[in-house]
């Protein structure tokens, strides 16, 4: 079963069509880069996949379920557009931010015990930022903050990562390093849908590239 299954999806903002017959599947272990011009509807597609918006027509399934009724959030890791930038002014330590990724597993009454702290340490280590665990978010570079956000998404060992323009504020080198890390983390473990404008670095990753244009997926090719 595909982790994301989109069929003939249509969506309009106040009558203006954004997605018009969009179809896409992301399977187990697949790294799919979603590219397209500004305003092509990439972030709208992500919001539909996450159940934040309701489609005007067609269907979208997240791990076989309607996203608006999806409840198994521990299977999903998500990094929103601009979250890392917002966190630059937030009073929080790196480990506190990564801990928030365990909400689905902990619930309101769960305690951050030894096993949970080990998960946080492991996620930070996989993203190469374990030495920053006790550092404030405000003291990190843009690239480091993005790696922390990735660690937050990975901390519950999800089956699917959804990353919305995770390298938007990074220079070319940092962006390349980030994509390499995502590609490495996904190998045999999780699938990922990555929205990006960075076609060069997307091409360098082993996976597929889906081009969103005119409200639909124009083509999907192996990178």
């Amino acid at each position: 079963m595909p982790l994301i299954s989109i069929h003939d999806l249509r969506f309009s903002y106040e009558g203006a069509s954004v997605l018009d017959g969009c179809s896409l599947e992301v399977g187990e272990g697949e790294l799919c880069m979603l590219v397209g011009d500004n305003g092509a509807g990439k972030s709208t597609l992500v919001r539909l996949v996450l159940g934040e918006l309701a489609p005007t027509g067609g269907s979208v399934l997240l791990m076989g379920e309607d996203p608006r009724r999806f409840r198994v959030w521990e299977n999903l890791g998500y990094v929103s557009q601009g979250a890392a930038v917002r966190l630059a002014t937030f009073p929080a330590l790196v480990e506190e931010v990564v801990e928030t990724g365990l909400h689905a597993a902990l619930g309101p009454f769960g305690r951050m015990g030894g096993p949970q702290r080990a998960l946080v340490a492991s996620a930070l280590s996989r993203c190469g930022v374990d030495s920053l665990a006790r550092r404030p978010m405000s003291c990190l570079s843009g690239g480091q903050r993005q790696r922390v956000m990735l660690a937050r998404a990975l901390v519950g060992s999800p089956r699917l990562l959804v990353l919305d323009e995770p390298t938007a504020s990074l220079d070319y080198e940092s962006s390349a390093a980030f994509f390499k890390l995502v590609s490495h983390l996904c190998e045999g473990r999780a699938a990922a849908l990555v929205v990006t404008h960075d076609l060069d670095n997307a091409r360098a990753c082993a996976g597929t590239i889906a081009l969103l244009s005119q409200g639909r997926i124009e083509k999907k090719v192996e990178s």
Partner: protein
Amino acid sequence: MLEYQFMQRALLAGAALAVALPLIGVTLVLRRTSMTGDALAHCSLAGVAGGLVAGIDPVVGALVACIIASLSMEGMRRRMPRSADLTIAVVSAVGAGLAGVLSSFAGNTRSLDDYLFGSIVAVSADELRSVLVLSCGVVAFWVIARRALFSISVDESMARASGVRVAAVEVAFALVTGVVISISARIIGSLVVSSMLVIPVAVGLQVAKSYRATIATAVVTSLVSTMGGLGASWYLALRPGGAIVLLGALLLCACMVGGVISGRTR
């Protein structure tokens, strides 16, 4: 000072509110809705005036007005997610307008004065019990919802995608905020309650690096300014509400100056 029962009650009520208000305030500040307390305080005045006109207990009037205003603000914020400050300004203006119009129909406006400036040194035993219960309720709510509130403050979409029931938590938070402000306004004054929500948090943001330390610093600052303000009001014959706010502002200034001297900025 401590041998007088009214001061004992004032100190206890002040301490309880000093713990509860920053727990609400930290989420308001981090979500960039710091003026929510001010807007709801205006609405509490409208509720008091409405209660006087309708012949019901002004405290109940303030409670109902604050809950309606808080939920309305939350509803408007969802309709206009990028204009949270506008929704606060609208509710604040409506609250002030209603308070002005309704107060002209209310005969005895003593209750309005009580809500404007508060009367913490005139807290009755029953009011003290209400404040203690309310503060315990706020602490319990915060313990249950703290992780969700932190996640929502960071990013609503990411919070939802990590299993937080964002809508339910936000409505619950709006309800708790409305109740806390309506009761607190009666005790410390509507002009003061907003300051007690945000000034201690501002101190926390100046000196702390982590979320937990920010909250701990805010609560300690709030306790120090409340106890110190009550002490100053006793020995210097000042209005307690004003003394509490000014002491908090003084602590904030001291932290900012200390930060400049040590070369640390936020």
